[in-house]
């Protein structure tokens, strides 16, 4: 942590966001800046890694280090970065399509490995960038041109999956409350191991009904726990709109021994010579 006083604007790049006006991701971007400032993290000590989708544009809008990677592979990229540069604060940004469908497998194993990084999924229950196809968190009855009458498929429950797979910090936030989201994000970054935050972030273009989320979200009626069993029981009655920290675990983060990264790059390059 630095003794310099940072403010939210210190983490903003000159690139203007092209999200739709009203998109929840604007608030998430604000929360990133507020959380980083709260922790006094120098921008050059942070890496924001993403995959593909509206939410994954976020690294370009920060002036931290960033990598806009391939679809669903943000966690793999971030894991590689964190084990080789444990000094960096690694924050991974994704959406419900990128993170739970294309990147679903990486999500399970990132939770299991418990590398010290923070995974933020901006969940709008739809593929926004590709014009409104159902995602793994879309409600079964949600009717789209691509899925007439709805998919009739049970939605993925990200918090249940994260808990069962071993994530060490689990929370849900609402983008419309950027101060609380920033506070939770700061807690997640501080907590050792793999931290997962689902942020409900409305898509005003393909899910205008999600504007109602503002009235539907509510503070979780229970306090956070470090007991997986209790957390699991709480999730059994989760209505999808409980906001706050659910679980703060005590697992030791995975970090390979330093020697494992001392590889001579010229030796590696030889393997790729044509």
């Amino acid at each position: 942590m630095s003794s310099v006083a940072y403010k939210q604007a210190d983490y903003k790049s000159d690139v203007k966001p092209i999200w739709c006006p009203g998109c929840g991701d604007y608030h998430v971007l604000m929360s990133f800046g507020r959380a980083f400032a709260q922790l006094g993290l120098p921008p050059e000590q942070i890496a924001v890694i993403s995959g593909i989708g509206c939410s994954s544009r976020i690294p370009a809008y920060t002036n931290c280090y960033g990598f806009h990677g391939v679809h669903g592979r943000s966690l793999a990229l971030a894991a590689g970065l964190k084990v080789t540069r444990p000094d960096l604060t690694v924050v991974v940004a994704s959406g419900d399509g990128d993170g739970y469908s294309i990147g679903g497998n990486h999500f399970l194993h990132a939770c299991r490995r418990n590398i010290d990084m923070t995974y933020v999924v901006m969940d709008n229950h739809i593929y926004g960038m590709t014009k409104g196809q159902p995602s793994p968190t879309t409600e079964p009855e949600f009717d789209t041109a691509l899925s007439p009458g709805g998919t009739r498929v049970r939605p993925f429950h990200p918090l249940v999956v994260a808990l069962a797979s071993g994530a060490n910090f689990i929370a849900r936030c609402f983008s419309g409350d950027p101060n609380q989201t920033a506070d939770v994000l700061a807690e997640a970054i501080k907590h050792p191991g793999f931290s997962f935050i689902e942020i409900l972030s409305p898509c005003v273009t393909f899910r205008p009904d999600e504007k109602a989320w503002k009235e539907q979200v509510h503070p979780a009626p229970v306090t956070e726990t470090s007991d997986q069993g209790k957390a699991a029981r709480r999730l059994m009655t989760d209505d999808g709109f409980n906001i706050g920290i659910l679980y703060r675990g005590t697992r030791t983060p995975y970090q390979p021994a330093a020697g494992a990264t001392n590889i001579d790059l010229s030796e590696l390059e030889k393997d790729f010579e044509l």
Partner: protein
Amino acid sequence: MSKTAGAPKVANLNDLLAVAYQIEIDAVDRYKLLADQMETHNNPDLVKIFRDLARAEGIHGEEIRRMAGDFDVAARAREIAKFEKSESPEEADLGSAHYMMTPWHALQLSLAGEERALAYFTSIVENTKDPKVKTLAAELVEEEAEHVQLVHRLLQRYPKPSKNWADDLDPPVSQE
């Protein structure tokens, strides 16, 4: 949640100036962001309105800075002017923006912001024990009340749009 929940505590006159200054600066940043959004989404009327609103709030901010004299309001604002549980009072609600929004919608956002600022300064007048703070806060209340009236007058120029204001002849469609 009350309109002033989590608002910064004002201990003296300089604190009040710092918070008032920050409120205006936050409004400037928010209006600029909305103007940029409208520029990206080709809504030129709204670009102009949001840029004008940003300019107006910037002028208010400068007035407060001048009022503070040699005291560095910006530095003090950085230290204390944080709204912990809500957005800064005059920050327009980003979630209410829409790429086809009309001047009426922009002025509604502005009106809500001015009313929040009015409520905030009114709460200071009602709660402070410091006579100097009370006097300045009362002046700020008067000023915000004038802004509220000004927005109401502007709204007479821009009547409420019809129900189908968001109908787009070339909408962003779900994949066929």
